[in-house]
């Protein structure tokens, strides 16, 4: 496997990482490394998760009560801290998804006005 050209990846916008983490956890409990991998894979390797901000983000979400954490064992028998979406986390995900969609649509209209007029 070739070395990735990491410079070409898109750095995440402020605040979007939280949304992506919540979204990833919708499919079930996952550990930090798994979350980071999943985001990368699902974005077709376009998004790079900076680990320096991944863990503080997890920390933050846990403090908000949107995710909960417990030590468990990974598929290849390694001890890892697994994060799970809570009920209020699911509600938060719906809210943030809607917000993000509206934001994306609005930015799209600004960047390509002719489309929205036409």
């Amino acid at each position, binding site marked *: 496997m070739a070395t990735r050209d990491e410079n070409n990846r898109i750095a995440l916008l402020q605040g979007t990482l939280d949304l992506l983490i919540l979204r990833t956890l919708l499919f079930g409990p996952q550990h930090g490394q798994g979350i980071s991998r999943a985001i990368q894979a699902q974005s077709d390797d376009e998004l790079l998760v900076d680990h320096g901000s991944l863990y*503080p983000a997890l920390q933050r979400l846990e403090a908000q009560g949107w995710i909960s954490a417990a030590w468990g064992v990974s598929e290849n028998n*390694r001890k890892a801290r697994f994060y799970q979406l809570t009920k209020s986390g699911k509600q938060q995900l719906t809210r943030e998804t809607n917000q993000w969609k509206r934001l994306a649509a609005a930015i799209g209209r600004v960047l390509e006005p002719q489309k929205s007029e036409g």
Partner: protein
Amino acid sequence: MFWRRRKNEDFSEEIQAHIALEAERLRAEGFSAAEADAAARKRFGNVLSAEEQFYETNRWLWLEHLRRDMGYGLRVLLRNPGFTFVAMLSLALGIGVNALMFSVVNALVLRPLPVEKPGELVFLENNHFGIGQSFPNYRDFRDQNQVFSGLMAYRVVQIELDSRVGTARTWGYLATGNYFDVLGIQPALGRFFHKEDERGEGGSPYAVLSYGSWQARYGGDRDIVGKTIRINRHPYTVLGVAPRNFHGTEVFYWPEVWAPMMMEAQIEPGNPWLENRGTFNAWVIGRLKPGVSPSAATANLNTIAAELSRRYPDFDEGLQMHLTRPGLMGDVIGGPMRAVSFALMLMAGLVLLTACANLASMVTARGADREREIAIRLSIGATRWRVMRQILTETVVLAGLGGAAGYGLAQVLSKLLSAWHAPMDFPIQFDVTPDWRVFLFAFAVSLVAGIVFGLAPARHAAKTDMNAVIKGEQLGWRGRRIALRDVLVVLQVAVCFTLVASSQLALRGLQRSTDIHLGFQPQGVSVVQFDLGLAGYTEERGRSFQKQALEAVQHMPGVTSAAYSNSVPLSIDENQNSVYPEDQPNLKASEVIAAATYEVSPNFFTTLGTRMLAGRDFSWHDDRKSPDVAVVNVAFAKQILHTDNPLGKRFHRGPGGPLMEVVGVVEDGKYETPIEAPRPAEFVAMEQHYNTTNTLLVRSSLPQNEVVANMRVAMAKLDPDLPLFGVGGLDQVLGLAFMPGRAAAIALSTFGILAILLAVTGIHGLVSYAVARRIREIGIRVAVGATPAQVLRVVLGRTAWLMTVGCAAGLVLTLALGKILSTLVYGASPRDPLALLGVLTVIILLGLFSSWAPARRAIRVDPVMALRHE
């Protein structure tokens, strides 16, 4: 670390797990183990930085810092046991004094009465007799007002109580039937009396016991309710026992019995006043209806008072009412008490302030040694706020420790104070046991003290110039300007001077007061007191009992002279009479002079040791059949009869009272307080003016306790049930008269000692600081040949100057306060150069003593060491 959500170690473990998982995945993608590991690490980035970030997002970080600062602070304190001890001692004293003063103020002024909604209670006063109201007036106020949900009346009375442990003359309250209901309290046992229990005069022989009386006199007997006890030798049924914490509505007076007001005639024999509108004997407390303001209540009362004034002009003309807080006999004691409390609090505050000032300079002086530590902290990235916080934490920890010690000290002292009984025949007692208010106060004071004395050194530390310090440059002595520290030392010395001087003056005054000319010789006189009225004696039986008692004690061994009287000078039982010279029987109220008055037997003057200047003593022939005669003092002759030779002159005793002929003149004496100016006094024959309250006096050459024991035996033979009170040597019984002066001297001496301790630490701190700052300079001076004297001049010059200013200020303050002092303590005059000189010497010695150690350090500076310094 229970307050942390998640440990740092837990987080590190998660990161390690992450890297391991990543490496495993990379290996699965075909990397070699070493390559995968390295790539995973590289991919993760800076592990340390992630950990640090995690640490700092912790929301309890400040608490974590606080814990560390406190730990560090404690270690620093433990490393400097000398400093810690001195600091804690001065804080413990400062905070202890404040907590103690506060618990006194709390007990007397702040703590509400233990009754329901104490804020609604008000005490009624009028413009004629202050705290007393006449009972008919009370009834009119009670029935006509629209502002009180209840209005009750009561009165402090003496009673004779016959209990299992013998009869005793003790104290209680007469109270109207609604008394307990207006206060809203529940009995500890049985029931209280109520309005329905009032069945006309003499119709409700009921008693409620105080908790203390029930315990002490009846052994806490739970079957006491319904039993009959004897009060003034009449049967009374015990209804119940008051709750333990309830001692009536006066915070300093602890009565034993409550009896219904309707029993007044039995409780106070020979003095019925319930139907007398002119006798203002009742005290009145009302409970305001919810929502009624005190001013509205006053207005309503005054409307009724105006009506009373119109209807009963003889008694109530111009009557006006006002309200005060209950608890301290209205404004009579309440006013001065609040003022004294405030003054004492202020003094205590001053003591604490000086303690804080000392500590501030000590901590700053120590800060000079710690400058390098702080500079290093700053240079490796500590913020200045963080450094300030570190130092503040240390001082607050210190203040907390000192505060705890101080609170303990206050606890012990207030227990002693609560257990104290005034040396007098009156149940004066305070409960100054610290409660949560005192604890809260001590806690707040400690915290504030810690911040106050930490602020200056903390600011100083934060301003540290790290470059200069680390390079080893001394910032030098820049203190030619007037620093706050200097002002504080001046203040301290001034306060110290004032307190020490005042206590000195007070003590010298007290010393002199033993030489006051009292007008009688208390040494060698023993007394017993008894009340024949309370004991149910009729006048005839009483008269013969008096003679028998006198007869009995006269024949005791060693007795040279004996007499009886209604009271003795300088005791609390002091009576006055308005006196009208024979030719001026209709003097206006404002022109009448009141004279101290005593009913005495023959030989009273001989027994007491009062000199007869002219005329004769009373004789047993001055009885009911012969004309009324009187003996007066010199002041009476001069001020009332306007003559130097009053023998044969006559005067009316009271308005329209009997005409008295002066048959003798005695020397002036002291009657109410030992510091009063000469005042008129009249003595009349007990044979002609019977009184039920009696003091039996004997002058004897035998030891006092022997005489007193003999007197008890002699009295018991005559009437074994008659309670005796005020038994002892006359000088003991008079102790109360000298109490204010003694109390003032004790308080001033205590504060004086405190002030000395604080001034010593203060001056020590200042000189230490000066030496610490100037070690290099001194080294240079010594190197270029300065003598020890020159070094001392450098180090001590400023201190000496500050002390001079402080002493001067203290002298001015002492002279200014001298006036107040002389009203408290007889003979204390600030014009006492010897005493002031003594104080000055003490202060100079203090200065020398406290700068001794640092000055020695300065002289012993080794120039080589000082210059190489670091």
